[in-house]
């Protein structure tokens, strides 16, 4: 079996995102990581490989210089065998569909029949790429999966529904799975494995190598601006003895906040 993972190197969970000065892009301070949902996907791919054998390959769209060390340190070091990085100037402003097209072609070229993605990246909250990849490939997709098993050419997956209801689905490969929290507990990278990850193969592909033209990934949706949320109004501090404070608080909650 050949197992793929799509992973995005993005701002860490506690990094602060902010629009750039001209509003044309967004910036973040702090370190970049492979997103936490993608890490569930990585872990599931490695566990599936450990159970059934096969090869694992991680796919990403981005500049090699920005993503390679993160892919090595947190994906290849966990046991994934190879990385494919799709990098092309035409992808710099790609929308979700452009990214999905590039990833779908790369997945096809590798002959993968099972792909794990995080349910979403944690920066733009767009939640589109995995479904688009599955659509472009004509594959089944199961989203927000909390348990997964594969047996020969068939799979079973448990997914989270509203209200905590669990839905169990099954079908045949190929399939694209998106990982929800709870699917597994990602392992830590062991230090010797981090050193060995340096020697694992990484391949860079541009659009031409994937048989795609720049027009094929041209954005159909473009961002016109990013804006910050309004500043939160500052709180009110009520002073005085307990009785006064309580009375005043009740009055404000009733008259100003109108919540009582």
């Amino acid at each position, binding site marked *: 079996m050949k197992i793929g993972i799509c992973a995005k190197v993005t701002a*860490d969970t*506690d990094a602060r995102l902010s629009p750039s000065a001209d509003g044309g892009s967004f910036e973040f301070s*702090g*370190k970049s990581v492979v997103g936490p949902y993608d890490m569930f996907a990585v872990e599931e791919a490695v566990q599936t490989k450990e159970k059934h054998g096969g090869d694992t390959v991680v796919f990403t769209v981005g500049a090699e210089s920005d993503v*390679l*060390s993160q892919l*090595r*340190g*947190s994906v290849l*070091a966990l046991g994934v065998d190879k990385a494919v990085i799709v990098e092309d100037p035409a992808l710099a402003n790609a929308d979700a569909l452009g990214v999905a097209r590039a990833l779908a072609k790369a997945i096809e070229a590798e002959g993968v029949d099972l792909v794990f993605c995080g349910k979403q990246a944690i920066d733009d909250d767009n939640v589109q790429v995995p479904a688009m990849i599955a659509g472009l490939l004509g594959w089944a997709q199961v989203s927000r999966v909390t348990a997964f098993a594969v047996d020969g050419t068939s799979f079973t997956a448990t997914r989270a529904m509203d209200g905590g209801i669990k839905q169990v689905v099954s079908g045949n490969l190929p399939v694209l799975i998106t990982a929800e929290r709870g699917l597994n507990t990602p392992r*830590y*990278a*062991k*230090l*010797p494995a*981090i*050193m060995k*990850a*340096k020697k694992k193969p990484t391949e860079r592909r541009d659009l031409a190598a994937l048989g795609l033209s720049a027009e094929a990934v041209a954005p159909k949706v473009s961002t016109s601006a990013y804006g910050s949320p309004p500043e939160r109004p500052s709180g009110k501090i009520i002073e005085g003895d307990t009785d006064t404070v309580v009375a005043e608080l009740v009055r404000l909650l009733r008259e100003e906040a109108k919540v009582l």
Partner: protein
Amino acid sequence: MSSYEGVDFYRVDDLLSDEEKAIREAVRAWVEDRVLPIIERHYQEGTFPTDLAREMGEMGFLGANLSGYGCPGLNNVCYGLICQELERGDSAIRSFASVQGSLVMFPIHAYGSEEQKQRWLPRLARGEAIGCFGLTEPDFGSNPSGMITKAEDRGDHYLLNGAKMWITNGTLADVAVVWAKLDGVVHGFLVEEGMEGFSAPEMTGKHSLRASVTSELVFSDVRLPKENLLPGIRGLRGPLSCLNNARYGIAWGALGAATGCFHSATEYAKSRIQFDGPIARFQLVQDKLAWMLREITKGQLLAWRLGRMKDEGTLQHEQVSLAKMNNVDIALRIARTARDIHGANGILGEYPIMRHMANLESVYTYEGTHDIHNLVLGRWITGIPAFT
């Protein structure tokens, strides 16, 4: 508290390889998940989190800079970075790794017989077996050459008598590397848990390194098989070479504690309001923070350079002395200053400050006291030993 990213004012990170940085991040993440949430309780209760031993082994923290026999085989800069991150958690965790790797696995690796290596190194690397290092005695600390513990050759075995004190991991250990005199010359012996006449009672009442086990080792007529002698070394050079390795790690480790304190002090100063504003706006407070940054930055450059020289094989032990004494000294002073900046909160377990501060008092003394390292440098400068 906001996320911890260490301190890198002089872009020392640019001097590290991608793998070295990835290793530091991995250890840092492990410390945040596995050490920081539990360490204060262990410190208060005076217990070592024993279940972390195997995890540290699995992660590749133990004997990290040794190769073969199941050891991780990382370079010395990686070993230093591991110590730095572990000690940001607590000096007890770093001490455990230092003792296991540099004081137990190193001498077996360097001076042990093939059977000793096969028998002990893989299990010690995995954290399945725990080791301790017995050099210090009640009456011989800075002057180990005076040690009383002795082994006698009884034909088919050695007979070991004496006592060691202040031994990290002693009570937990499956194997003790014990330094004792045989015909007046210091030799290393592997004493195993359960041997008749050997006991390792824990020392209690410590105010420092409370999350580390410190013990006495008592030997009364312990019959040691002949094959338990470390065959590859004789003389004080044996234990001193071990200490030199461990001190190297401490030079890095102390920076972890210092950086943890600096981070906490900075966050606290920015959020603590007195006289209608954050205390971070006072010049006196800024002076303290600027001084901390200055010392940490210098210490980082010392540690980095030391690591590269160790990897090249050009390191002199006096250079290790300078880095150990400097970095522990500044870490201790940074911890005290951070305590001051935290005001009364500085004495609470809610902040890591007082714990680091109390721990560093031990680190200042063990592995060669601050002043003994001064004397080592004095001898290097003048050629005149002031302490023999």
